[in-house]
């Protein structure tokens, strides 16, 4: 179990380093960086490489935003395997829903309970 924590730390950290490089080195805006990472996660899954990474790193691979692209692709591929080309369209959100629905739900809740704050240091 400790080894899986260490692996999650290292792999997750490295994905973030890639993100930081995109921001600092290639001067991308945060939105561009995130989109790039999501697309690369999706492509990695196309080559069947992201699932082994999850098996290896656990949260180190599922927590970064790259896993979002992976699970979209993965859902689409799984459906496609069952139903052919139509499945590509229908399967996409089958796996991903939790992150998005949580974000929507908690976003509304936050708007409800939190006031805008005065600026502080």
């Amino acid at each position, binding site marked *: *179990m*400790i*080894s*899986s924590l260490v692996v999650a730390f290292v792999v997750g950290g490295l994905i973030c380093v890639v993100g930081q490089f995109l921001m600092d080195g290639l001067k991308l805006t945060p939105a561009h960086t995130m989109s790039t990472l999501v697309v690369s996660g999706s492509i990695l899954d196309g080559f069947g490489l992201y699932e*082994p*990474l999850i*098996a*290896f790193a656990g949260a180190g691979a599922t927590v970064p935003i790259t896993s979002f692209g992976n699970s979209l692709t993965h859902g689409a591929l799984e459906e496609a395997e069952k139903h052919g080309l139509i499945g590509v369209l229908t399967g996409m959100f*089958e796996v991903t829903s939790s992150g998005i629905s949580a974000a929507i739900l908690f976003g509304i809740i936050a708007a409800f309970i939190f006031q805008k704050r005065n600026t502080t240091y």
Partner: protein
Amino acid sequence: MKNKWIVILLFLTLGACSDAPERVVYPSDDLELEKILDKQDSIIGYKSLMDNNTLLVSIEIPTMKRFSKVKIEENIKKELENEYPNKKVIVIDDLKIKWEIEKIIEKEHESKELTKSIEKILALSKEET
């Protein structure tokens, strides 16, 4: 001085979590199965359950080999299927399954209940999302 104790305590608690890999076969009268699983060098531990229809094996793959987790699972599954052609064989590396198997072994179920609990685990392992 205080810090030292905290560190020691931390190691002890963390150490307690990472229990050493075990090799358990249940019911324990199947030596053939143990032999097959023992000679697998890609795993460091296993726990298996068997009833009349199903053979359920939870394996433990060392962290560095986990990239090829699916392949290892499939290889072992094939080997076991050859050995037990009339049983449904499931080989999986998963903490939850391992813990569930441990629970069952501890309780030492009767064969009827054993089937029931195996079915429960099977349902769990099939969930994909």
